[in-house]
């Protein structure tokens, strides 16, 4: 999403919008300065030092295993009126995005759909999910629309679903496949900034999701096949607000990251989904580094330029997108295999228990990577709210708003990145240790079990930091 639509993409799909090509690049672009060496070293030092501090603390003070306990601080109920009106708004918003995408101005920045989907929803709503609470289950427009339809149909039918038995072995594998496709559309596909393409993608996915609801029942499909419910659910485990439904929507307040502590191992498919999510977050940043540009140039040696050979470029990017998560999964399984050797547990069990401890590192990196994009490109929603279709309307008098690229200073972003990365790492190490204590019982075994995991965590954090310290470049083989 951040990198410019590649030249061939422009040639393929931006023809009707040639006047906008300059702008079409802008959505794709991040203007972040690389993290300077001093910040990089300070953060790296802090990461390593904190790892040992936490390790030392645990050896001394945790004599008894930490059982899964209730971390809830406060409880409440979300009023039905709030839920229903939010659902209505979400359905209307999605309808607006589809209609604007299909019939509005084809220019990326003259149409509300690209900015609303990529920046406001995927990045902005993602932040809300991780740092405040996952409200996606409350407002999910596909689920809401289906719920409204079931309510309307009530006089004639008790439900709109066949409720076929969902095969247990299938787990969240459908979501894994969908997430890989989504990441490909976000990071590789040409034309991802074109409003019409986004609208078509939303319509296709809607049809797919509603088919899933009809076949297996809404709740079953939301748990397994609605990829955004699964993804936001994972990020939302970090957040302080937890939303659950027992007929009414309940909300509870808990400390950050408490939702990542679990004594029940994740299903293998959910472990795979988590690793896929973690891997793609890193691949996303890695694709803009000079190292990757050099790799692309090396592969292209003798094959002409990217423009001359766009399919090769797409194939190379796609290969990275698949190889990145596979590499992470491989390393993770090696670490878990080492853990298995010193415990009486097995690979499936332990791999399902510790994968969540890596989530804080990914969230911290995600925040550092995307915050300025959100702050800068997110401003486009202000003029676009007044003129969502790009027809020249001025509904709220904000159509002429000019975005301010200086809204956040690079220094603030650097501080934010360093603090986020170090904090994310500390939380990850903490979650790993609490989980290990709960699983292994014996604190010494728990401590020992974490050595390989700590190596993985430090490496993963360092890789994130290293990417942030790289200047953003576009692969160019000319």
């Amino acid at each position, binding site marked *: 999403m951040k990198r410019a639509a590649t030249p061939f993409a422009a040639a393929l799909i931006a023809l009707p919008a040639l006047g906008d090509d300059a702008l079409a690049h802008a959505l794709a672009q991040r203007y972040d300065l690389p993290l300077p060496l001093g910040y990089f070293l300070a953060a790296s030092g802090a990461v390593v030092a904190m790892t040992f501090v936490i390790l030392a603390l645990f050896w001394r003070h945790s004599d008894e295993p930490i059982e899964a306990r209730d971390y809830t601080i406060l409880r409440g109920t979300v009023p039905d009126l709030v839920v229903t009106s939010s659902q209505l708004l979400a359905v209307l918003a999605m309808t607006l995005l589809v209609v604007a995408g299909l019939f509005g101005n084809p220019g990326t920045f003259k149409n509300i759909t690209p900015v609303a989907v990529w920046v406001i929803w995927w990045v902005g709503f993602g932040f809300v999910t991780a740092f405040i609470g996952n409200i996606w289950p409350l407002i999910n427009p596909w689920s809401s629309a289906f719920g409204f339809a079931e309510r309307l149909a009530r006089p004639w039918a008790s439900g709109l679903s066949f409720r076929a038995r969902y095969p247990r072995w299938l787990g969240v594998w459908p979501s894994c496949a969908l997430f890989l496709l989504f990441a490909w559309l976000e990071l590789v596909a040409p034309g991802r900034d074109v409003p019409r393409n986004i609208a078509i993608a939303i319509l296709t996915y809607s049809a797919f999701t509603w088919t899933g609801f009809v076949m297996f029942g809404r709740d079953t499909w939301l748990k397994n096949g609605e990829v955004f419910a699964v993804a936001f659910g994972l990020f939302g485990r970090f957040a302080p607000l937890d939303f659950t439904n027992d007929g009414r929507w309940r909300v509870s307040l808990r400390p950050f990251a408490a939702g990542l502590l679990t004594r029940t191992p994740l299903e293998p498919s959910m472990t795979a989904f988590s690793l896929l999510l973690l891997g793609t977050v890193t691949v996303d940043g890695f694709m803009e580094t000079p190292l990757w540009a050099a790799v692309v140039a090396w592969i292209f040696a003798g094959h002409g330029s990217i423009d001359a050979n766009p399919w090769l470029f797409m194939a190379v990017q796609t290969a990275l997108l698949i190889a990145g998560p596979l590499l992470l999964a491989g390393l993770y399984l090696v670490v878990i295999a080492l853990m298995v050797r010193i415990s009486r547990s097995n690979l499936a069990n332990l791999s399902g228990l510790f994968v969540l401890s890596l989530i804080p590192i990914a969230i911290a990196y995600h925040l550092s990577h995307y915050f300025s994009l959100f702050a800068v490109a997110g401003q486009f929603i202000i003029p676009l709210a007044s003129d969502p279709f790009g027809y020249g309307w001025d509904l709220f008098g904000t159509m002429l708003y000019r975005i301010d690229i200086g809204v956040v200073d690079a220094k603030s972003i650097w501080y934010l990145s360093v603090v986020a990365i170090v904090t994310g790492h500390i939380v990850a190490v903490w979650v790993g240790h609490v989980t290990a204590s709960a699983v292994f019982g014996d604190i010494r075994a728990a401590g020992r079990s974490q050595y390989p995991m700590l190596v993985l965590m430090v490496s993963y954090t360092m890789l994130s930091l290293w990417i942030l310290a790289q*200047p953003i470049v576009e692969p160019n083989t000319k």
Partner: protein
Amino acid sequence: MAVMVAATFIGSTNACLAQSGVVDARRFELRIENERIAGNVKTVQVQRDEFVELVWSADRRTALHLHGYDIEVTVNPGETQIMAFRARATGRFPVEIHGGRYAVLLYIEVHPR
């Protein structure tokens, strides 16, 4: 003072600023040959709030776009074109050649003080 006022409204008054000839501007002479910058310049670094002048010349007609600050010029052979602005926003901003291909020619890095 007039210069300061003009410089504050970059974007709309670049031409104005260029013509007025700011005294302390950081000036970079950039020559494009064969769609690359002569001397293999890849990055230009300036400090926040400096006045920057990028003086372009080219061996063929070239349309240039500085992203972020959103300044466009078209350079013809035998002439120079100036992108002038106050570097009020930090970041790493690409200059691309438009028309046909969209290769990044140069990055302007505006560092915080």
